[in-house]
């Protein structure tokens, strides 16, 4: 039975023998452990009062940062949101605003 790679043990300080053979990685979605949220200079903020749960903001996020559960969007995944502002622009209800800073 194959085991998922513990990628927390593979970094620029780990010796060669701790690396996976052929740089293969077992298990998906490990990039979640990498916080691209640090790239952000503007942060989306949602006004739940104005949000109609139309979900038009969800598919346009390049960073999969607008999680949907049971047909309703949840708050932004700010660990990964790069602050591109596409969601703000597609929202017809003015529910999302881009705030300066992180």
């Amino acid at each position, binding site marked *: 039975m194959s085991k998922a*790679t513990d*990628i927390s043990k*593979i970094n620029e300080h780990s010796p060669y023998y701790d690396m*996976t053979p052929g*740089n293969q*990685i077992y298990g*998906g*979605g*490990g*990039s*979640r*452990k*990498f*916080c*691209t949220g640090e*790239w*952000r200079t503007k942060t989306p903020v949602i006004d739940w009062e104005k949000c109609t749960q139309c*979900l*038009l903001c*969800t*598919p*346009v*996020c*390049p*960073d*999969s*940062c607008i*999680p*949907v*559960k*049971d*047909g309703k*969007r949840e708050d932004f*995944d700010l*660990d*990964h949101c*790069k*602050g*591109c*502002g*596409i969601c*703000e*622009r*597609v929202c017809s209800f003015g529910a999302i605003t881009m705030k300066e800073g992180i």
Partner: protein
Amino acid sequence: MAFNFKEVMSKPERLAPGHRMCAGCGGTIAVRTVLRALHEGDKAVIGNATGCLEVSSFMYPYTAWEDSYMHNAFENAGATLSGIETAYHALKKKGKISANYKFITFGGDGGTYDIGLQSLSGAMERNHDMVYVCYDNGAYMNTGIQRSSATPMFADTTTTPVGKCSNGKMQNRKDLASIIANHDIPYVAQSTFIGTMKDLYEKSEKAIYTPGAAFLNIMSPCPRGWRYDTPDIMKICKLAVETCYWPLFEVVEGKWILNYEPKKKLPIEDFLRPQGRFKHLFKPENENLLVQYQEEVDRRWENLLYMCSK
């Protein structure tokens, strides 16, 4: 199956965040929508030509892909997936595996229109049961915005720079969807990002679940290379469709189908104006270039209408 936006949006995300694509990238918007079209329970192996998407989505040891994934080189994504898909049939036949798998490859226009065209053509002609998805951003963005054969006419790129003696790329873009359609494969479609992504989602689902080879060409704007205001990506895509620069069509078993015909076709300037790469076209002395551009868009649109027997 009727398109239910809320249900579709509730499907699990198959491209994890934490990849290193640019803020506002169109490429990953395309990838997310295509992958969402996979039915739950179906597994997939994703192939990827070298390009922005590849170097950003599997940077050792972080993979953004929830599914099995293989990057091989720049020009051989079609061939690599051919091998994986064939192995699937071989192992299934021998009873070594039982799960259902789908095979999807992503390549930029560099890896698809240009360096990878031979490998793509081979994979399509052999009719492997796979989908090749080109996220077409119209230049080699990964290496710094050099022209490709998908680059539109007059675009300012780093190898077709606008200068005293140059108005950018002098040639028209290659019509790849039509080239692949002429491989006589079961399904070819062209799409981009519109509204709820219904068009792209449905085409992705058809492409994935049509037995045999399928090809999707998805215009995926690159804010850096196209130089538009990053949040405006959906507006740019809409203009591309409304000006008939990027028509939405399908070729199903050789039959051409037009999916959308604008009620009032917008002038091509509307699509070009917001993009810095076409800025020079709006100098007064270049008015003739815009006329030329419009003629080319019209010619291609007429041709498409003819293909679709309109």
